[in-house]
């Protein structure tokens, strides 16, 4: 179980850390997460062109958020929906730590505006089964010791799953080429290749 505060939006967490609960305006986006169907969240106030109400499907859950038009999918996930698994590395589309699946395609959530998303999103939080059984790729990263600090790992795993599904994991060279958008400053690369090879076999059997 994560620490309770970790589930709060960043703004709220910061406000709590500052001890500013009394009277401090905790005003992240208006968020209503609901099971499929009922959606009762407020729409963007009319007349403000810089706000947008966005309907997203994240890990099979429907979410409605009202955000500044500038808000990336990454910031929406992390700051407004409490899904902090996707990491912010460079925030410029260079490191791959923010990789999620949009419509099944691996996508950089830091260079995607939340308002532009029309297809279902899968993040690292949606990879394991509901009863907590790890995805073969997650298990392979553990088995093969495919990370050290772990910061790039959510992006690596999401990207690696797509790499196998695309059919771009047929050799070590091909894995290296098609995983080149995910940087690892600990340089766990050889172990990442081994993990993808391990998971590939299981994913193909499944």
């Amino acid at each position, binding site marked *: 179980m994560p620490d309770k505060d970790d589930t709060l939006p960043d703004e709220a967490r910061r406000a709590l850390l500052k001890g500013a609960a009394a009277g401090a305006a905790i005003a992240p986006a208006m968020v209503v997460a609901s099971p499929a169907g009922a959606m009762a969240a407020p729409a963007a106030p009319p007349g403000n*062109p*810089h706000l*947008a109400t966005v309907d997203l499907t994240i890990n099979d859950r429907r979410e409605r958020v009202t955000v*500044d*038009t*500038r808000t*990336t999918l990454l910031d929406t996930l992390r700051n407004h929906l409490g899904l902090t698994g996707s990491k912010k590395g460079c*925030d*410029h*589309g260079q490191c*791959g730590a923010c*990789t999620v699946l949009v419509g099944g*395609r*691996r*996508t*950089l959530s830091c*260079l*995607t*505006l939340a*308002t*532009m998303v*029309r297809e279902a999103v899968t993040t690292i939080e949606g990879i394991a089964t509901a009863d907590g059984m790890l995805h073969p790729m997650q298990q392979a990263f553990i088995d093969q010791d495919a990370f050290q600090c772990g910061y790039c790992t959510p992006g690596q795993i999401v*990207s690696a799953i*797509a*790499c196998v599904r*695309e059919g*771009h994991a047929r050799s070590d060279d091909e894995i*290296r*080429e*098609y*995983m*080149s*958008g*995910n940087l690892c400053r600990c340089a766990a690369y050889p172990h990442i290749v081994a993990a993808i090879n391990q998971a590939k076999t299981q994913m193909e059997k499944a």
Partner: protein
Amino acid sequence: MRPFAYSRPDDVATAVRMATPPMPKAIAPTSAPAQFIAGGTLILDLMKLDTMRPERLVDINGLAPALGAIQSGPHALRLGALVRMSQLADDATVNRDYPVIAQTMQLAAAAQLRNMASLGGNVLQRTRCQYFRDPSWQQCNKRHPGSGCAALGGVNRKHAVLGVSDTCIAEYPGDFAQALVALGASVETQGPAGARTIPFERLHRGPDTPDVETVLNPGELITGFVVPAGPWTRRSAYLKVRDRQSYAFALASAAVALDMDGDTVREARIGLGGVAYRPWRAHEAEAALKGKRLDAATATAAARAAFAGARPHEHNAYKVDLGQRTLVRALLQVGRMEMPA
């Protein structure tokens, strides 16, 4: 990033209307208040850097039904502007009949970016010159016409040696454009003044007006590309030389397509990347090869002709040599390709 309004039209005409400023001729297209967004990989990066500051983004992804197809016919290959790079990279027909195009996709960026970036946006990608990208540099003729060029006396290892001027030596970073320019493709657009077709070689402007990078008008949208079929398209390849083996921009690259009669070159089509201010067709090298037997000597002579007008600066003189070697290797490699009967 500065605030902007967002809209998502369903048809090309509405998109063009939304993006057209009241006085289109008075503004450089990249400075226009409204900008199109497709993949977002270029413009959101530059907006985060505060290098581009649009007040409105017109999301054109809703136009994918009209602009998202790859169509190969007997006379031409048509590519919709909203085809994604990964889609083109994996297209079986393009890999067989226009390998140079598929290879420019496979060797560009990384998998995530290729899933996102559209072909229309790809050809409009802006230079990687750090003095342009980082607005804390005062001198940049692209950002502030007349302010000077910090790259001339700065770190210019990755800058251009062909087609440069004393006002700008920024390199054009793209790969796809080199295949398009080599194969004599054209660009189809729709703008405030209607639809038009522009030879790809004339899409990008030279460095005399660094802030105006293309002949497009504000509000004018690239809708697609037409690549004429020819006897040279199957015998073609893209060679890209980089600091890293993957996920890096070209230091030098060559897009080569050859029509051969035995060992003799009937016609050569050559685009050069990583070395020039804009997508660069090496006409001099093509002329030097026409009617010649292709071997190391003629390839070297052609490469020398291609770089005869090179103007290197302090840190990029190596590109004159590297660019020639890259072209020679690409020519010999394409000359050796085995063609199905």
